[in-house]
C-alpha cells in the first residue's frame, strides 16, 4: 500500500483547501468557470509574472500539498501532463510564424512539458528526481506508477500530480474532428504527496495502479486487475470512470453488467472535472476525499478509458485510523 498524505486540486469544483468538497460537488454546467485561488498567496511575484495557467495551478497545488503534509522537501517531483503547456506553445508558434525579427524567448522556454516539474523544483529549491510523463489520457497514471516505483526503491515522500490547460483552439479542433463531448474541455490540476508510511495525515491508500496503451480487451484487464489485488466486485463501494469500457453510451450499465453488480454505484467523474487528459488525477482526489469523510467507503476503483485504446486503473482503499 502507498499512502496519500496530502491532496490539492484546482478545478471547477470548490476543491482547493476544502476538505470534504466531494460532498458538495455538482455536475458542470455551461459557463461554469475554474475556481482559482489568489495565486499571490502561493507563488512569489518574481516567478508568478511569467506563469501561464498550467504553471500557476501546478505550483500552487504543489505548495499547498507540502504545507498540508508538513513536508519541506519531497524526495522527488513527478508530473503527468497530456498536452503540456499549450498556452505558451501556441504563443511561441504564433510569434514564430507572424513576427519578423527577434522573438521573445519566454514562451519558448515555458513551452516544454517539464516546465511544471522544473518550476516546482525551482520554487522549492529541490534537487531530487524530477520527471515528466506525457502519454495522452494515461499520463497521470504513468506518473503515479513512477512515484510508486520510487517508494518501492526506498524513497519516503513523493510529490506527484498532473495538470493540463485549455486553449480556445482545442474547442475548434474537437469540433472539426467531430469529437463529441457532453461536458466541455477545460483545465485542471491535482497534486498529491504519496508516502511510504501511514501517518496521522493519511487520507487514503493506493493499493495498486496500472496504465496500459493499445489495450485490446478492457473488461478482461479490469477483472484481472481486481483479481490480482484480491478484490471482489462486491467489495467495491464506488467506481469512478471516464470513457466507456464497452464502447456504449451507458457507462453505468456497462460496469454493472461487466462486474455482475446491479446496484454498484458508478459515477462519470468527468461530469464534475470537465474534460482534460489528466482528469483521473481529479478522480483520485475525489476518491480520497470521499473516504476521508464517509468512513463506510473501503474500496474505490478509478477506471479511465477516456481514449478507448488506453486504460488507466487506480485502486483506492481506505486506511484504518
Amino acid at each position, binding site marked *: 500500500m502507498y499512502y496519500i498524505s496530502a491532496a490539492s486540486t484546482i478545478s471547477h469544483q470548490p476543491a482547493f483547501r476544502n476538505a470534504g468538497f466531494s460532498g458538495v460537488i455538482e455536475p458542470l454546467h455551461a459557463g461554469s468557470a475554474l475556481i482559482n485561488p489568489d495565486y499571490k498567496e502561493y507563488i512569489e511575484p518574481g516567478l508568478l509574472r511569467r506563469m501561464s495557467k498550467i504553471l500557476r495551478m501546478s505550483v500552487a497545488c504543489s505548495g499547498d500539498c507540502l504545507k498540508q503534509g508538513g513536508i519541506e522537501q519531497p524526495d522527488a517531483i513527478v508530473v503527468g501532463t497530456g498536452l503540456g503547456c499549450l498556452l505558451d506553445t501556441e504563443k511561441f508558434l504564433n510569434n514564430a510564424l507572424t513576427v519578423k525579427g527577434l522573438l521573445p524567448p519566454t514562451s519558448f522556454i515555458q513551452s516544454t512539458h517539464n516546465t511544471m516539474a522544473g518550476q516546482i523544483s525551482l520554487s522549492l529549491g529541490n534537487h531530487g528526481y524530477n520527471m515528466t510523463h506525457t502519454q495522452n489520457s494515461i499520463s497521470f497514471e504513468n506518473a503515479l506508477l513512477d512515484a510508486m516505483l520510487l517508494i*518501492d526503491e526506498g524513497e519516503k515522500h513523493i510529490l506527484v500530480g498532473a495538470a493540463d490547460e485549455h486553449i480556445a483552439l482545442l474547442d475548434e479542433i474537437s469540433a472539426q474532428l467531430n469529437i463529441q463531448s457532453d461536458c466541455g474541455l477545460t483545465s485542471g490540476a491535482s497534486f498529491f504527496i504519496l508516502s511510504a508510511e501511514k501517518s496521522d495525515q493519511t487520507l487514503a491508500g493506493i493499493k495498486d495502479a496500472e496504465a496500459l496503451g*493499445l489495450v485490446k480487451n478492457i473488461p478482461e484487464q479490469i477483472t484481472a486487475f481486481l483479481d490480482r489485488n484480491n478484490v471482489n466486485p462486491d467489495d467495491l463501494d464506488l467506481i469512478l470512470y471516464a470513457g466507456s469500457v464497452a464502447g456504449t453510451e451507458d457507462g453505468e450499465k456497462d460496469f454493472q453488467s461487466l462486474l455482475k453488480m446491479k446496484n454498484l454505484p458508478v459515477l462519470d467523474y468527468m461530469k464534475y472535472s470537465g474534460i482534460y487528459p489528466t482528469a483521473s488525477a481529479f478522480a483520485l482526489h475525489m476518491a480520497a476525499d470521499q473516504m476521508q469523510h464517509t468512513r463506510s467507503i473501503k474500496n474505490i476503483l478509478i477506471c479511465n478509458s477516456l481514449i478507448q485504446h488506453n486504460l488507466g486503473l487506480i485502486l483506492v482503499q481506505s486506511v484504518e485510523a
Partner: protein
Amino acid sequence: MSVRITGIGIVSAIGLGVQENLLALKESRTGIMPFSFPDEDKMFMAGAVKATNPVLKKELQTKSQYISRTTLLGLKAAREAYGSAKHHDQIRTGIISATSVGGMDLSEQFYQAYLNGTDADFAMLKAHDSGSTTEHIAAELRISGYMNTLSTACSSGANAIMLGARLLMQGKLDRVLVGGADALTNFTVNGFRSLMIYDEQWCRPFDASREGLNLGEGAAFLLLENEKSIRFSGNKTLAFLNGWANAADAYHQTASSPEGKGATLAMQKAIEKSGISLSQISYINAHGTGTKNNDLSESVALINVFGDQVPAFSSTKSFTGHTLAAAGAIEAIFSVLAIQNQLIYPNIHFRTPIMETGLEPVTIMQTEKPVHAVLSNSFGFGGNNSSLVFSDHA
C-alpha cells in the same frame, strides 16, 4: 546492479542505422552542414537526417498519411533495436519513448495554414501530442501494455533509458524498448535563436570561442532485457547499463548553475549506483551543447566529481548536432559502441580550452586504450540533469 542491453538502433545526421553511424564516427566525419527547411531560403548549420519523409515512409512501408517526422525517425531506430523480437505471452514487454516536441513538424504546417485561413487540415493535429509518437511506434512493432513517453526537454532520452532500467530492476517488466526521437522543426530552431544560443557557425563544444549549439535531429532506441527474456530471445548482450541518476539543478528556468550542482549530483549518484570506481571510467560522453553556459557549468561539475583526474571526454554533438530528446539515447548508443569497439571519440572543432577550467576534450580519435566503462551526461531545461553509466560487465 545492472541491466543488459541486447539491441540498439539509431538514425542521426551521420547515418541511418548503427553501421553507418559507427563508420562516420570512426572517420571523424560530422553530419552538421548548411541546411534549410523546404520552401525557405535561409540556410543555417544543422544536423539533419539525410532522408526525406517520403523516403522514410517508403522504407518503413507505412501508409499513414498523418505521421510526423519525429515518429518516422523513431520508428526507423526502434525497428533496428527491436530486431525480430516476437510477442510472447510470458514476456512482459514495454516501450518508453522520449520526445520534446512530438509532432510539431506537422503542427506548424497546420498552424501556418490556419493563420493564413487556407484549408487547414485539422487531422494533422492528431499527431501533435508527444504520446502519439510512442503509440504509433508501438503499434507498428505490435507492442501493447506498458507504454509511456517522457518529456523533460534535452534530458528526455536518458530518462527513458533510466525508467526502463528501473522497471526491469523492480521486476515490473521483462523487456523494454527505450529511447527518444525528435525532428528538426522551425519551432525549436526559432526557439534556440530567441535564446541567442544558436551558433550560425559550426558548434564548438568546450571551446573558449563557443557561441551556442547547432540543432540536429534523429532517434535512437535500446532494447533492455532481463535474464528470463533473454532465455526466450536468445539475444546476445551488447553492453550493460550499470548506473543511472536524475537530479534537479533548481537554479534557473534555462541556465545551469555556475557551480554545476544538479550535474554534479547526477554524475555522483549514477557512478555510486554503478559500483564502478571513478578511476575505472574510461570515457565521458559529455552533454556539451556548445553554449557558453552549459559547457562551463558541465566542466565545473566534471572537476567537482573527478578533481584533477577528469577522464577522457568529448561531446559527440559536434557530429550530430543537439538532437534534444533523442540526444540521451543517441549518446547512449555511442557509449555502447565505444565499449564494443574500443573507441574514444574526438570533439570536432575544438581548439582552445575554456579559461576558467582549462579542461581539454579528446580531439583525435583514440583506439588504443580499452574502454570498459563510459559515463554519459544529458542535461535539460528546467535544470533536469541525468547521467548514465555503461560498461562491459554486469
